[in-house]
Structures are given as structure tokens and as C-alpha cells.
């Protein structure tokens, strides 16, 4: 019987493992392999260059710019949706008129693909007739009209706002679920004992929402690491590389400059960064599990 079960376990696991091996592990190890070559994507004949590509990264000005942008992107992609999602959840958890409708409205953007979200925000930011500049012109005149996506000082932040707009709904829903798990009588006791609303939030609600926060932050980190499509749609890393992230830089080097080997080296560095962040996350998760598990 045991042997029979083991056989079926193998059978049923074979398909997903096969898919995982072909579509995840194989490309992953291929990237490691190509990062040590000067492959250009077209030429089947290429040479091994050892760690030259990694040495080149150290002196690549655009890599440094992309690394800084990635750090900004990740911090903002965690902080903005998390805080906005928490604020919305707290607001809509109280008895606000039409809370259900608002919950649906705020959650809606997460149902859209990044391409659609990107296009919506391109229209909002459009320099001549976009919604944002139209409002600004109505209020202040032409003075503060701005080409939000075409200027290096605002391009990245404009995409971050669009990204946060989409991701906030997800954080809100997770926090709303977390809030329902907080016993109402506990908050009542706090109120009777004279705790102010801020003290109740800071000392009771926020600590009890820690498991939700871990999930929200984890999803934000994972989603932000994957956040290539919206940037590609909205700015393509431009103008002149000012909104490049590491993923975009890897794409440009690989597919626009035809430096596949170098692009693979960037992808390896990006992979290691992602692994380090995920490692930190699991460590934090174990801590939360110990406290609340």
C-alpha cells in the first residue's frame, strides 16, 4: 500500500516538477552559465570570459544608477502601498457609509494588468492634455504643467505612484482581514481604561496586525521585484536611463545592446539580491510565527 502511494506521489509530482525544472530551474542555471560568456544572442559561437562581466558591473555607471533606482523603487513600493492600505483599511473598517462600495473600488486596480494600469497613468500624466496637467492648469495656470514621464527628476516617482495606486488595494484587503481578527471587546476594554484612539492603534491594533503586515510587506517585496512591466510600459527606463531599475537595465543590455552575457551577469546579481531579501523575509516570518503561532 505504502509502495502504491509512493508511486502515485511520484506520478503526480512529475508534471509540476517537470514544468518547474524547464521554466524556472533551466533558465536560472542557463543565466549563470551565460553570465560567464560573451554571447550576443545571435551567434552560436561564443567564448568564456570568466568573471569579466561581473568585473564590468563594478564600473558600469548605468548599473549604479539602476541599483539606486531599484532601492528607491523597493522602499517606496513597500512603504506607500502598506501605509495607504492600512489607512484605508482602518477607515473602511469603521462604519463609514458605503464602505462596501469603497472597498470594491479600492480593490479594483489590483484586478487590472500592469499594462492597463500603465496606460491609464500614461494618459493621466500626458504632458499636453493629461488629467493631471489639466487639473493643474485649471488651478494654477500653465505655470506648473510638467512632462511627468519625460523628465528625469519625476519619471521614476510617477511610475511609483501608479504602482502604489494598484498595489494599495491588495494591502487594504489583507489588513481588513487582519482587523476582523482583533476582538472587539479588547478594544472596548482599552477605551474604558482611558486609552486614546492613537494609543489604541499604536499599542493594540498595530501589534496585533503584525502577521498581516508581514504578509503585506512580503507581497510588496515580491511584487516590486517583479515590477518590470509597468515601468517598461510607462517609461521604458527613460528618459535617458533615469528610471532604469536593475531589471530594466538587464533588459536594455541584453536586448537593445545585444550583450546577452553581460545581461545574464546582471540577472545573476539581481537574483542574489532577491535571494538575500527573501532570506531576510523568512527569518522575520519565523520570528512572527514564534510570537503568534
Amino acid at each position: 500500500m505504502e509502495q502504491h502511494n509512493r508511486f502515485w506521489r511520484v506520478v503526480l509530482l512529475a508534471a509540476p516538477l517537470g514544468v518547474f525544472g524547464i521554466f524556472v530551474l533551466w533558465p536560472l542555471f542557463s543565466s549563470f552559465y551565460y553570465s560567464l560568456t560573451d554571447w550576443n544572442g545571435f551567434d552560436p559561437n561564443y567564448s568564456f570570459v570568466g568573471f569579466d562581466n561581473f568585473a564590468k558591473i563594478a564600473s558600469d555607471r548605468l548599473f549604479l544608477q539602476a541599483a539606486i533606482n531599484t532601492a528607491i523603487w523597493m522602499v517606496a513600493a513597500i512603504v506607500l502601498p502598506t501605509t495607504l492600505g492600512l489607512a484605508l483599511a482602518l477607515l473602511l473598517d469603521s462604519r463609514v457609509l458605503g464602505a462596501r462600495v469603497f472597498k470594491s473600488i479600492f480593490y479594483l486596480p489590483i484586478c487590472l494588468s500592469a499594462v492597463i494600469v500603465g496606460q491609464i497613468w500614461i494618459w493621466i500624466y500626458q504632458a499636453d492634455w493629461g488629467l493631471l496637467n489639466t487639473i493643474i492648469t485649471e488651478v494654477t495656470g500653465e505655470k506648473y504643467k510638467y512632462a511627468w514621464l519625460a523628465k528625469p527628476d519625476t519619471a521614476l516617482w510617477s511610475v511609483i505612484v501608479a504602482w502604489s495606486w494598484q498595489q494599495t488595494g491588495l494591502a487594504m484587503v489583507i489588513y481588513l482581514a487582519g482587523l476582523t481578527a482583533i476582538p472587539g471587546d479588547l478594544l472596548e476594554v482599552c477605551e474604558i481604561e482611558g486609552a486614546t484612539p492613537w494609543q489604541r492603534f499604536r499599542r493594540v491594533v498595530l501589534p496585533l496586525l503584525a502577521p498581516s503586515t508581514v504578509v503585506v510587506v512580503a507581497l510588496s517585496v515580491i511584487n516590486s521585484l517583479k515590477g518590470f512591466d509597468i515601468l517598461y510600459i510607462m517609461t521604458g527606463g527613460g528618459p535617458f536611463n533615469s528610471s532604469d531599475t536593475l531589471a530594466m537595465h538587464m533588459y536594455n543590455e541584453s536586448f537593445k545592446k545585444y550583450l546577452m552575457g553581460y545581461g545574464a551577469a546582471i540577472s545573476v546579481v539581481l537574483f542574489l539580491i532577491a535571494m538575500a531579501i527573501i532570506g531576510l523575509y523568512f527569518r522575520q516570518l519565523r520570528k512572527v510565527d514564534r510570537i503568534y503561532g
Partner: protein
Amino acid sequence: MKQISRRGVLLGSLAVPMLGMGRMAWAQAGEVTISHYFTGELGLKAFNEQVAKFTEATGIAMKESPVGHEDFKTDILVRAAGNSLPDVFSYWAGARVQFIVDSNALHPIDEMWAANGLDAVIAKPVADSATLYNGKRYLVPFNYHYAGMFYNVKVLADAGMTAPPATWDEFLALCETLKGKGVAPIALGSKNRWPAQFWFDYLLLRTAGPDYRAKLMAGEAKYSDPEVAATLAMWKDLFDKGCFVENANADDWTDASDKVARGEAAMTLMGTWITGYWNGNGLVPGQDYDFFEFPKVKDGVPNAVVGPVDGLVIAGNAANMEGAEKFLTFMVSDSGVQAAWANAQGALSANVNVDPASYNVVMQKAAATVAAAEAFAFNYDLATPPPVAEVGLSMFTRFIDDPSQAEAILTQVAADAEAAFKT
């Protein structure tokens, strides 16, 4: 009911993912697979009509995968990297084809060329500049374009233009007149970077000449040279004088074309594909729009024209080589196909048997302009190797964002381009 065996389930579970390892495109026997960038405003419908003529004439079916112009640049590399290039694909003649030829990924077509007498079909200047790489032929020119100063006829008539500006001073005077009338003289949509290149190309060609420009494109001259600095200085002068629309980096080429069509701007330096776009929007060639040549800047400099050649090439490992060669031959030799395609796309045909009278009045003028030119140069991103082109294209948008930084930008670009030439 037939029982499914355990072994069958196991084999099936392994076989399904293995399907993903095969070639992406599954061609039927005898079919020719093709990928191209003639989509949307660049004429998918017209392309399909020409392909249908080939199938009707030869009985060979084509399996198509069109990809948007910008995405095609990536898509074709992904397919090459995955060893799944189509039999035939469209590509831009010049440094990009040279790059693939150097990578041994294309099939030489000298025998096909000779067997079908293409020397007598293709205009020699185009054949010499666009089809030969490392001494062999690899590409047939499907069509070519010319970049000129396309303008709104009514706007320039209102500004009192009776004859196109022939010199730089006349051009600057025209810009001043237009500004005085409250019209932005020049529309530019450099969001996708490449539309800016024509300004760099022409200013450099008109001041330093085609020979110097060829050296710069090949890495034999440097971006720190005074010739390049002078080019950017002239370009900066136009920005300082307020000749360009604001926020050019926020618009793409169709936005800039629309501004000219609506009369918000007077002219735009663009390729002849703009005629296809405008015709599609109901504008009448010669009546609503026209073009003039980029003005002469310096005496003694040969008159060069700039433009891309859209070619068709065959992958080195094409599954249906014979069908692919038949397709290339038919598409470039059949004057009916060439005339229909060129007209639909707003392009010029390299086929000498195409009657220029089949073009509209603006394209007839473009054909005559190219014929009279002393040199035909590929535009920047097709004239220099792709890694260098990336450096230059970013330079243009950075310069457009803040022309006052020209000197610092050139210092940086000189270093970046030198490094890119070494890759």
C-alpha cells in the same frame, strides 16, 4: 471504458512539459515562416495583401507572426537566442544586419540573386549600400524611406513661404516668421528616442560631410571631435531660439505628426512613412502636406540624404530555404507588389521597374530627391553598431531635455561610445 495505465499517465505527465522545448513556431510542410514589423500604422493589411499574391502565384503558404515595430527589435533577438528564428524576417539594412551577419545567423543569397537577375531589378545605389555585407549579399530591399522636412502646406503658406528654404539662414528666418505667427516651427516626438536621430544625422552630414560621419559611425572618429561639438552647438541654437515644441521627449512620432497635421506646429523632420500615416488619416498629399530637403548648411559639403532600408532576410537555419528564397525573389521582383506596397506604406521602391508615376506627388518628389542626392546614408541607429546606437540615442534625449549640458553630455558619450565599440 479503457483504463489509463500508470505508465501512460507518467509518460503523459513528462511529455506535456517537454512540448515546451520544441520550436515555437510549428510550420506545416511546405510553409514558409515569417516574422515582420509591418503592423498598425506601418501597414499590416497591405503586407498581408502582398503575401496573398505570393501564395496565389506560387502555392506556397506563409505562416506569419507580425510584431510591433519597437517590440520587434527584442522579439527577433529572443527568437535567435532560442534558436527559433523564422525562415524569413524583416530587418533594417545597415549595422543591424551587419551584426547578425557577423554572428553567422543569416543565409547568403548570392546564388538566388544571380539566378533571378536581381542586378537588373534593384537600383544599384540601394543594392550596393544595403545588400552587401562582408562581400556577400544577405538582404533584399523590400522598400526604403527618405527623411525630409514634412510640413503643413497651409501653415507655411500663411507664413509666406513661396519657396522652400535652401540655406540655413533662410531656414532660421522661416522659423522666426512662424514663431511670430504663434506657431511652433518644429514638432519633434523623441519619446522613443529614434525620431531625434535625424536632426543629429543631417546637421552632422551638412557640416562635417558623409565621409566624416561614416568614420564616426564606424568608431574611426570620436564623439569628442570638434565636428560633433559643432553639430550639437547648431542643434542647441535651434532650441535656444525656441524653434522646437516644448517637451519633445514626452511625445512619440505620431504625436509630433498630429501636431503638424493640426497646424499646432509647422514641420517635422521625419521619414516618408509619415505620408502613409497622414494619408491614412485623410490628409491629401501635396495639398495638405508636402516636404522640403534639409537645407544646405555649408558650401562644399556633398548633399547626402538619410533614410532606412527595410529588408527581408533569410535565417541561416531556415527550415524551408527554397520557399524562403522564392518569397524574397517574388516580393522584390514583382513590380505590382512593389508598387502597391510602397504606396500603401508611404515608402519608395528599390525596384527599377516600378513606375514613379504610381507614387503620389509627394513621394514622386521624394524619389527624385533621393535620385539627385550625392550620397545615401542610413540613419544613426542603423549606421552604427547596436551597442553604440544605444549610447547615442540616449544622448539625443538627454540633450533635448537640457541642451545647455551639451559639453558634459558629449564628454560622457565619448567615453561610453568608445567602450561600446570595444564590446
